[in-house]
């Protein structure tokens, strides 16, 4: 399990964000901050996901699918091998039924299709990270 709120100053949870788009990461980071989370690592490709997970042991992972070298499904499998309880949310433009089924079968907790509604993603992040509503 990742560090709890007490381990990370005032943040409610820690997270890493893996998406090849700077714009997408910027948006997700804003949402994570708005619900009291802290982004402790970010990467532009799935090849860095497993190492980053091991390094930070985050409470939550936000993972894109379409990336240049290692895609999100492979990165997801690598992360789940390290920690079968990892909390991974896939955020991808590839929202077809087969892709969603495959990601959830590989251990993702939720699948969000881009473009997304920020309030909806906030709710999902809080739910997966186990943040209680005030």
């Amino acid at each position, binding site marked *: 399990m990742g560090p709890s709120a007490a381990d990370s100053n005032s943040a409610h949870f820690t997270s890493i964000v893996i998406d090849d788009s*700077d714009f997408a990461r910027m948006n997700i980071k804003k949402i994570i901050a708005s619900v009291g989370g802290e982004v402790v690592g970010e990467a532009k490709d799935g090849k860095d996901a497993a190492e980053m997970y091991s390094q930070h042991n985050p409470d939550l992972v936000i993972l894109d699918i*379409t990336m*240049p070298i290692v895609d999100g499904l492979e990165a997801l499998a690598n992360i789940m091998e390290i920690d079968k309880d990892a909390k991974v949310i896939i955020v991808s*433009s590839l*929202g*077809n039924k087969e892709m969603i089924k495959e990601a959830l079968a590989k251990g993702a907790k939720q699948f969000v*299709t*881009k473009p997304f509604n920020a309030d909806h993603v906030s709710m999902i992040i809080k739910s997966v990270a186990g943040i209680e509503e005030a």
Partner: protein
Amino acid sequence: MKFEYIEPFVNSTARVLDEVIQSDISKGKVSLVSYDEIHGDIVIVIKVEGDTEGSIILNMDNETAINICNAMMGEDRDELTPMCMDAISELANMMAGNATSALVDLGYDLRIAPPLVVARDGMIKRISELEIFQVPLFTDCGEITMNAVLRTN
């Protein structure tokens, strides 16, 4: 490109544009064009593989790109910054991802690669012998043209 691809493809593309830039979208006439009919300052190419191979290409002029960037980022810039270009690439990724997903849900096997922003001159040489399916999309930010260069396997 098979005709049955076109409608779900165009509809999902227009829906994404509508959601992302919050603009009324009107679709122009779908046509088959040659490479010299791809115009615009900004060209984004997304490679498609699977039952069909080729590319989805979005093109637009600088002014439209700036307007879209401002709509996506909630800003009022008058130039294209690197983050603007990334936002437009991400828009292209969402349009292509949703368009191909609509076809995957109909039973096709299609995968897309990350978007690539390329110089127009370099791109048109590689596709000059293929048929291009083109549809203009008119938005409050300006006109975006979506081109699909897909060869059925």
